């Protein structure tokens, strides 16, 4: 597959029929959260799209993001997308290893300078560079070098997007996100722990289709997927509005599928597409299987207190504070009251009798 070949040509060469290509476009539109009326546009764009070079760097991560992606990697539409890109470096997936792998990365960076897409998963340690290195190169150096020639950077997963679990208190490695270090390149954050696979491929498909990055929110997340909160699109929302909540995981409310807000659901503050795109080929999503949303696509979710207490509830012991305050208030009040009484008594004691001769003011 030569680099000059268009995607349309490549697919056709692989024996994909026009009918199959249209099906692929319909699925791609659905994946990109675009309306079905966009299918012809997508078809036209994809036909003439050229396969971009992609360099995938993994830093402080658990490989969950790659796992999420490859779970759906058999001959699927996402697979096709990946077939249509030139994944020039991905140290988990590539066959090459050691210096050969690094050489491939450097070659790709050189040949496609200014054009390649840099995908990053995992956060970057800024404390001691030795916490995470690849081929003796610190994550930070590798990122900064790779970022220079990138057309755009896709931060896959919450670690790359916001620091993630490695950045959880007390953040021993000084982990930071990609956007903390790179400021001069377009960055697309695809957070989630892990992100929904079609969201990763959807973003790549968008770039592939339109050659641009999708519309982003203020956290640099594609609005098409992160534009609405879980809560807004949750099928259990009507229960919230009616005040019907599951109190425990095995009570009547839980069995009846009532709102999980009381069990700590972070749906109201979490923006992601889980409620519509769902997981495992559209089977369900956490709330549907009875578990509150953890808010894994939001910055700081790892330090947000218990997963099982509601988002607005206090994290400190308020009744205890209130009890102490009553005591202290009583003491302070009695002290202030005593001071007032003393002051008043002083005025009473100092009172000089007012007689009729004391009424006229010297004028």
């Amino acid at each position: 597959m030569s680099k000059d070949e268009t995607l349309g040509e490549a697919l056709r060469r692989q024996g994909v029929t026009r009918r199959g290509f249209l099906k692929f476009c319909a699925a791609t539109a659905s994946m990109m959260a675009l309306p079905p009326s966009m299918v012809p546009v997508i078809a036209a764009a994809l036909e003439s799209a050229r396969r971009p070079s992609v360099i995938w760097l993994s830093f402080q991560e658990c490989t969950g993001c790659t796992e999420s992606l490859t779970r759906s990697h058999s001959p699927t539409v996402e697979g096709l997308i990946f077939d249509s890109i030139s994944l020039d470096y991905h140290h988990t997936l590539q066959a090459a290893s050691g210096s050969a792998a690094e050489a491939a990365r450097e070659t790709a960076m050189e040949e496609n300078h200014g054009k390649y897409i840099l995908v990053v998963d995992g956060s970057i340690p800024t404390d001691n560079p030795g916490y995470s290195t690849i081929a003796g190169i610190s994550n930070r150096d590798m990122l900064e070098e790779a970022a220079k020639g990138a057309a755009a950077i896709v931060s896959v997963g919450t670690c790359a997007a916001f620091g993630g679990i490695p950045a959880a208190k007390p953040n021993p490695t000084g982990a930071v996100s990609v956007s903390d270090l790179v400021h001069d390149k377009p960055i697309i954050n695809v957070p989630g722990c892990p992100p929904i696979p079609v969201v990763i491929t959807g973003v790549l498909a968008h770039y592939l289709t339109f050659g641009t990055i999708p519309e982003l929110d203020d956290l640099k997340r594609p609005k098409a997927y992160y534009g609405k909160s879980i809560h807004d699109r949750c099928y259990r929302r009507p229960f919230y509005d009616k005040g019907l909540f599951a109190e425990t995981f095995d009570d009547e409310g839980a069995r009846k599928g009532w709102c999980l807000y009381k069990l700590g659901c972070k749906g109201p503050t979490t923006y992601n597409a889980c409620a519509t795109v769902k997981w495992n080929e559209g089977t369900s999503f956490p709330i549907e299987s009875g578990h509150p949303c953890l808010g894994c696509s939001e910055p700081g979710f790892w330090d947000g207190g218990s997963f099982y207490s509601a988002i607005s509830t206090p994290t400190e012991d308020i009744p205890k504070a209130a009890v102490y305050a009553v005591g202290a208030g009583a003491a302070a009040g009695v002290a202030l009251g005593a001071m007032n009484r003393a002051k008043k008594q002083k005025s009473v004691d100092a009172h000089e009798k007012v007689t009729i001769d004391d009424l006229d003011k010297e004028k």
Partner: protein
Amino acid sequence: MTETEFLLWVRGPALQIATIVFVLGIVARILQMVMLGRKANLAEARGSALAGGLRTMVTRSVPDKGTFQRSTFTIVSGYIFHIGLFVTIFLFAPHILLVDEVFGLSWPALPTPVVDATAVVTIITLLAVLIHRLKDPVMRFLSGFSDYLVWLVTFLPLLTGYIAFHRIGLSPTMLIALHILSVELLMVLFPFTKLMHTFSLFIARYYNGAIAGYKGVHS
């Protein structure tokens, strides 16, 4: 500080500080007030001070006809926004949840759309109340910085609550944090401002009713 850290601070240390200032301040101020004491009445009583006091604590909520006609706007708007505040504060499901979580007390909530509509009415009424304060010659004359401050810190939690519920403008994390923060501002200022009237008005009404009740008059 990220938004989540901000929310955590607001839910944690800030809420703790606000609670301490709020509770300590109210208790201290009420004691400071009541400890000034008053002289025993040596005149022969015609009625019961206690009964009169308790009675007025309740009856003063209902104005007489003439007063209602002369101060219709003040009374009607006052009723609406006080009831509105009560409904939005105490009958909104997440608020009840909060109380339940903290103190283990809970009661039935109103349906969310009802509370939402009440919030809108209350916000509009509070705005009308502000305009009235600025336009009415007596109220404008009487009002100073503290009156407008008290209005503002009452208004802010409603406004931020409404915006947070409808997720307008900022991220929900930030909106909830700002909403909680605005409530904490209210709590912190509470003991130092006339917001104290929430509690002291019952003491004031008691004294008024007791003074009158002792003389056999219903006030």
